[in-house]
């Protein structure tokens, strides 16, 4: 990445103003910098803005945009609330060194197809909270593009009666997912998210509907829901697999995620 000027604003307001300038770019972890061919006029570093936090209330968790994947992995707050969900989700990101760099804000903003974290956040119905703007549902955020400056301040996840599970298939343990799945139940409501399709995560709404209204989930109901999910989503081909494989493997992964949540 070519950078003309590198700035560390001292307030969110200053950061936001910088971002409205031409060809300005917020650096999250900056892990892509070496590989990126981007030419950036102003690189904005949010390190001074105290955005590394995980705050728990009775009904929701707030995660600051600069919180690293490693912090998500080792957070006792996240473990108390969601069990091993976040640990399972980020465990395969290369190594602890990389996880000490990549941030939740950078991952969310990047909308990467391969992202495991985004799939889990989508299943959890996360809200993306920008500075100086309205919170956006992550599903919407993934589908829309932003014309004005959008400075992610934090991510909010409702936690009341919420449980989630993450499943994936990949070659080596540190490789990108060939496909990833996250299922979550909040109260009586189910969400099934599938990512690395290779496209970015999407909700399988029809699949989730199959589970609605059932207090207990039996294996064949989960199988049915998974089948519907695999049919309703679209898959593509890349280096790692073709569409047919992704669709084939979507079924068992969704079923396993559902059963993990259901037990």
């Amino acid at each position: 990445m070519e950078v003309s000027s590198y700035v560390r604003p001292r307030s969110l307001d200053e950061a936001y103003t910088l971002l409205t300038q031409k060809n300005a770019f917020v650096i999250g972890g900056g892990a892509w910098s070496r590989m990126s061919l981007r030419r950036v006029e102003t690189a904005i570093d949010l390190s001074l803005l105290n955005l590394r936090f995980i705050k728990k209330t009775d009904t929701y968790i707030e995660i600051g945009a600069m919180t690293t994947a490693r912090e998500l992995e080792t957070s006792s707050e996240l473990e108390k609330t969601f069990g091993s969900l976040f640990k399972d989700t980020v465990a395969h990101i290369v190594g602890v060194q990389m996880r000490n760099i990549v941030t939740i804000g950078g991952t969310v903003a990047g909308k990467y197809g391969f992202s495991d974290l985004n799939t889990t956040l989508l299943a959890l119905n996360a809200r993306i909270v920008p500075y100086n703007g309205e919170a956006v549902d992550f599903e919407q955020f993934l589908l829309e593009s932003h014309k004005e400056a959008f400075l992610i301040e934090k991510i909010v996840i409702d936690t009341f009666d919420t449980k989630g599970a993450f499943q994936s298939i990949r070659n080596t343990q540190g490789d990108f997912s060939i496909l990833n799945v996250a299922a979550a139940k909040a109260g009586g409501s189910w969400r099934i998210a599938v990512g690395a399709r290779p496209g970015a995560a999407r909700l399988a709404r029809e699949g989730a509907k199959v589970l609605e209204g059932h207090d207990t989930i039996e294996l064949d109901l989960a199988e049915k829901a998974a089948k519907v999910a695999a049919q309703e989503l679209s898959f593509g081909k890349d280096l790692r697999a073709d569409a047919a494989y992704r669709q084939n493997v979507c079924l068992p992964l969704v079923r396993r995620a559902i059963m993990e949540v259901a037990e």
Partner: protein
Amino acid sequence: MDKHFNEVGKARPKIDGKGLVTGRPAYTDDLACGDALVVKIIRSPHAHARIISVDTSDAQKVSGFVLALSSKDVKRIPFTRAGQGHPEPSPHDKFILDEYVRYVGDEVAIVAAIDEESAAEAARLVKVTYEVLDAVLDFEEAMDNPTVIHPEPEIHDMFPIGFEPKRNIAAAYAMEIGDVEKVLESSEVSIKASYHTQAQAHVALEPHTAYTYLDLHGRLNVVTSTQNPFHTRRLLGQALDMPLRNIRIQKPRIGGGFGAKQHLHVEPYAALVTLKTGKPAKVVLSRKEVFEATFSRHQMRIDVGIGATRDGHIRAIDMHVLSNTGAYGEHALTVFMVGGSKTLPLYNKVEAVRFGGQIVYTNKVPAGAYRGYGAIQGNFALESAIDELAAKLGMDPVELRKKNMIAEGQTSEVFKIMGEGGEGVEMIVESCKLDYCVKRGCRLIDWLPSRLAYEVAPGRIRAKGMAIAMQGSGIPLIDMGSANLELQDDGFFKLHMGATDLGTGSDTILAQIAAEELGVDSDDIIVYASDTDHTPYDVGAYASSTTYVSGNAVIRAAQNMKKELCAAAATKFSVDADQVEFDGKELRTKDGSKTITLKELSFDLLYHDGLNMKTVNASGSFSGEKSPPPYMAGFVEVEIDLETGKVDVLDYVAVVDCGTPINPQLAKIQVEGGLLQGIGMALYEDVQYTENGRLRTNNLMHYKIPSREDVKKLTVEFAESYEPSGPFGAKSVGEIGIDTPLAAIANAIYNATGARIRELPLTPPRVLAAIREAAQS
């Protein structure tokens, strides 16, 4: 053999270990001086093209720019980059810079500048126009393709190797013992199948690097990450048309080889800049360049036919190979031949055996040397085919092998017929513990023919598979190594050898061998190696030659040293030399009347003995009259997820016969490291190209080598074995570990699911598709 050794067989720590772990500067780029000119290579974006023009005018405007070179600036001399002995069995089909480019990544031009940034900027500004030509990308379509990749009139072979460039054939070979067709036809049971192996990348963690400068005498000095300093000197001299006496090659510490650096690689480009400017220069490749523009393993299609009696006696084996050597023919013939010469002799009781095929050019990444060197590809095919035969016979695959595999004291006619690019050497196998290796491996993995696969959970199966393998120990009559020993004051010895330590620890184990023969401590041996100005010749680290060839050379040097020491002491004692004995610490007359310590002798000879003062040195050279094979049996236990096709290795058991392990720990690591590379090729390392011939898997994000979380366990043991012709009974151990995982894992998948997969890697999509197909039929 009950041998008591003092130094050999001890797990001596590597002499460079502490320095490397604590980060002392050791590798070529650490040693390059700070003001070395940085050389960047401009590379072709096309798989096949003619360069119309190279315009460096914008590049020259970059501040810090020093020099740009294209083919018009370089003398046109065809050479080979293959690190092999002379005459090389590889075609001389490469020019330093040429008018044609033959693969995406091929060198077009070079620029040199004062630092990394200017060089990168200058390289970006070089404008090249091309006439794009049709590319040959499918190696099964290469032979007699209308597009000829090497039409140049100057290229040539060094001796007949079947070189037919007009047909896109780099080399070809055929041999037959007995009448294979006849025996196959009359066999009660036969199988016939084709197997495909991919062009694996070495991924040595240190990218290829070379640093050049002119010394005080105006000689070209090259510090380079190489496995073969002496070949590099000769090949570089040829390519640059320079007398060898004006070139010095030094190998410092290198960050991995595995065959990647058994070639001339970036040295000519750094050298050209130094020769033209008089200044130091360096080339440090990026990982992308290492993938795209160094060397890979030869991709192969191997057609196997086996004929046997109904009770499992193998009567004939037929192996036909089509090998893809990419854009240039380095190691083309020899890798191909090892595919047969280091697999077929495993089944030496056949009535007939045939091996042949072609190695073709394509407009893809050039293939070259890589650990296993053909034996790994051949092993996948043959050991899969043997299991297919076992299935057809309804026989335990282990029993089938026991019935047919080679044993100690036996020979194979293949040894005599197939050598390094030509005929081989007859050999009785004086050490072979395959029977023990198989038996012990069965015990360790708990091999129960009636229960090779079982369900552990719904949709999850555990299964076992196995394969046997052999390799070689150097190339007989062709590989030669030498060592010089010199006594120093204070009673220690300098050991100078050409032998090339890639991190394997050869410096350490060769010192152990010298110490053992001399009767001294390893700490009394100070090693210096791999410097063409100061160390004697050695072929370099390849063909698993270092322990056997260089080790035997060290023994000879040590034996000669003992004679010299006794002679020097005899002069002092005024007796005949045969009256003096040396026990490692003291020299004394046989009757014990006169003694002197080694330490005292060393001082006297250098300072005190007047007209009798001298330097005591001794040398030894060795080249083998045989290449005693190491053997191994590999057993894998995998767990397969039937719904996703994911295959995980739970345990890999390797029982190895390498003769005496000179340093048991270093030997073990060689096997463990080889196993992981084999498992990587079997399961993970995928090679993909675009339809325009660009390598898509050209970085470590997409080309995945195993991480430490991928394999649960490795279990490596050594058989008690002793090779009489080897140094203190040793054979080689460098390559044998890599050969078996491909077939062992494919066999396990078959045992679990009935799906026989004959191409690699065994990624989840490939395995799932095969499982589903097998389930349907």
